[in-house]
């Protein structure tokens, strides 16, 4: 009875008792690396080499996080949605969908990060940072009413949509 391939330990595919398989394996070994652009090693320019600490390209999530922070900084700086959309190179609708949280709470996000840094420096024993932290301890966001802001944004959005509807879906 012939042994079945894969069932008996020590059985080799190169066994000359299977001439067809043996010839195929030899042919592949002779051919070497397969042809085609996807199998050819690519050369990179020096400028294309990533110099990150990890030596890795940022992932999509990391890039998105960076953009979120950017939007929060713009909001903290007092820029309006139209200006931010122009800087980011996207439509207002897309900006509102992708960065809704940052548009709403951008000021708080950046302010919290600043306070965290100040606190870290203060903990290190930097007196100036401690003084500043104490001075800004009671600081509040200047004249703001989140509910009114949200309502105004919603109303602006309604007018924008209405104008779009009146023009048959075009701006």
């Amino acid at each position: 009875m012939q042994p079945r391939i894969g069932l008996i330990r020590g059985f080799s595919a190169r066994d000359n008792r299977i001439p067809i398989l043996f010839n195929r394996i030899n042919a592949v070994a002779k051919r070497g690396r397969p042809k085609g652009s996807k199998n050819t090693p690519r050369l990179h320019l020096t400028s294309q080499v990533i110099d990150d600490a990890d030596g890795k390209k940022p992932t999509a999530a990391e890039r998105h996080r960076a953009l979120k922070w950017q939007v929060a900084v713009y909001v903290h700086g007092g820029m309006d949605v139209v200006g931010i959309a122009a800087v980011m190179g996207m439509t207002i609708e897309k900006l509102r969908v992708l960065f809704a949280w940052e548009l709403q709470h951008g000021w708080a996000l950046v302010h919290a990060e600043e306070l965290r840094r100040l606190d870290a420096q203060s903990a290190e024993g930097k007196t100036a940072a401690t003084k500043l932290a104490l001075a800004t301890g009671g600081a509040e966001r200047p004249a703001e009413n989140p509910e009114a802001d949200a309502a105004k944004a919603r109303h602006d959005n309604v007018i924008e949509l209405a104008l779009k509807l009146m023009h048959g879906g075009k701006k």
Partner: protein
Amino acid sequence: MTIKYEPPETYRGIEIQNFQTRDRIEGRVKPQIDLVMGLGNIAELFRYCSDVSKPPEARLLAAAMLEAIFGQAANDRRVRPEIDLELVKACSAGLEQESSWRSPTSYGCLCDQQIGDGPEPEMRPVELTKEQLESTYPVRSSR
């Protein structure tokens, strides 16, 4: 003496309809558009949209805003406001400039009627009526 109508223009993204005098555009239509843009209440918008005495541009805007409010609620997966979109569309039907149902004698649709003691449609000056009739329904030459 013929009243010259102003060429169509756009105000706050809304096209002002033709066959209107400059006085009416400045004194009536534009302030009404401003007024509607400030409205946020659904009931007020619907009341405005169904009021035949109001300028058609502003009524169309009110109808579009109601539709937008409904669409926004649907997009945000919120509870839909109680708006009968079909009724809104019926109230604002035939008000467009290109519509063949546009009334030559009044600022509005041919179907706009005074209901009871309610507001009545604002009448168009006779000269403009004649011009609009000629423009909307050109006389075909018989062979």
